[in-house]
């Protein structure tokens, strides 16, 4: 899923303060998880679609971003159907898609730097307890940014295993992937240090 790629704009969602958007996302997410049943799941999906339309999300971006989520959601739904009932399966499928769409909408309409500024502002009072708001904000920013980078590493590792005829070996996929992720984390740490960020 493509997260963290902000598209500038002037829609209502682009103009809303970061705090309001994050609070809205948190409340909606809790409601989606807590309120049960396929009908309410459908209503929440409709809300997520309306918000995505309000944010003028690019349809191609939505399709590309939700492709993987949709596959996972379908697998989960099939499992739910087999284990429980069709109602539970539909609810799971719709809930997962709604959550992903809401996260994507927030991501597209909010710059990561704006989120970092908001986190720094909110955590400011905790500075007296020894907490470094800048560092916390940077950690959140890095977590968002790490997703596409880690997916790219997974793809490269899979291609490398295939090229050596090892596409059925989980070890040939996992071991180099973990090593490369750790190595990338070290490189990123060096790069941050070199840029004097987080000091």
């Amino acid at each position, binding site marked *: 899923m493509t997260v963290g*790629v902000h598209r500038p704009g002037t829609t209502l969602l682009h103009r809303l303060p970061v705090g309001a958007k994050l609070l809205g996302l948190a409340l909606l997410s809790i409601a989606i998880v807590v309120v049960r049943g396929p009908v309410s799941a459908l209503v929440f999906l409709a809300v997520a679609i309306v918000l995505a339309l309000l944010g003028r999300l690019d349809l191609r971006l939505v399709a590309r971003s939700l492709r993987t989520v949709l596959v996972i959601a379908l697998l989960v739904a099939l499992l739910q159907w087999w284990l429980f009932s069709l109602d539970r399966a539909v609810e799971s499928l719709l809930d997962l898609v709604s959550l992903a769409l809401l996260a994507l909408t927030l991501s597209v309409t909010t*710059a*990561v*730097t704006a989120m*970092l500024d908001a986190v720094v502002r909110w955590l400011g009072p905790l500075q007296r307890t020894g907490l470094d708001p800048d560092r916390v904000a940077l950690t959140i920013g890095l977590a968002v940014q790490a997703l596409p980078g880690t997916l790219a590493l997974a793809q490269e590792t899979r291609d490398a295993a295939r090229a050596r005829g090892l596409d059925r070996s989980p070890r040939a996929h996992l071991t180099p992937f973990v090593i490369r992720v750790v190595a990338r984390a070290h490189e*990123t740490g060096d*790069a941050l240090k*070199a*840029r004097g*960020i987080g000091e």
Partner: protein
Amino acid sequence: MPEIRFEDAAVQVEDADGDVRTILAPTSLTLTEQRIGVIGGNGSGKSTLARLVNGLVTPSAGRVLVEGLDVARHGAAVRRRVGFCFTDPAAQLVMPTCVEDVELSLRRTVTDRVRRKQLALDTLARFGLAERADVSVHALSGGQRQLLALAGVLATEPTVLVADEPTTLLDLRNTQMIGDLLFSLPQQLILVSHDLDLVRHCDRVLVVEDGRVRFDGPAQDAVTDYVASVARAPVAGGGSW
């Protein structure tokens, strides 16, 4: 130009068996030229020498001073003066979009959000990336990524730029573009490179071999010395396929 001084600076590491390995033997140098090249084979210690300049590596013995500041004791202050550009820009770009990545560099010095964004946009424009401001860093070409990495480093206007093999992953066109850019900068430049054509433009070149600076002099002489030393050295595996 700023003065960078190595005073018997050495780097040693302990390996898993407890054996001490010398990465850089005690080295004393005073660097005041505007463009300094560092060449040598893989694993020769040239990157370690470059990393000592902004404290990414601290010396096990001796010290390194940048404008009189001891890198080991005043790391943060030194890094405000010394920018560092890595071989692989993917490791260096840590924000989702181009403008956000440059903004991240400016967070330390510019607190006003509007001014920070404007400065980031101005920096991108200077590097020919104005139209890519809101594009994902993952959607850039190799050359554009390296340009962005440089923009992120130079946005804070350091007095020294250390570039560790900045063209190794680039094609010929992008190598020329990044090379032209590096040599047009007003900053003091320490360029670690395998590209001998690029290094020929430096005022002074260090040849590093087996953790020692084996030659230190004008670019042409250094390149000649390095090429001759490579020709003399036996090739691992016999040199035939």
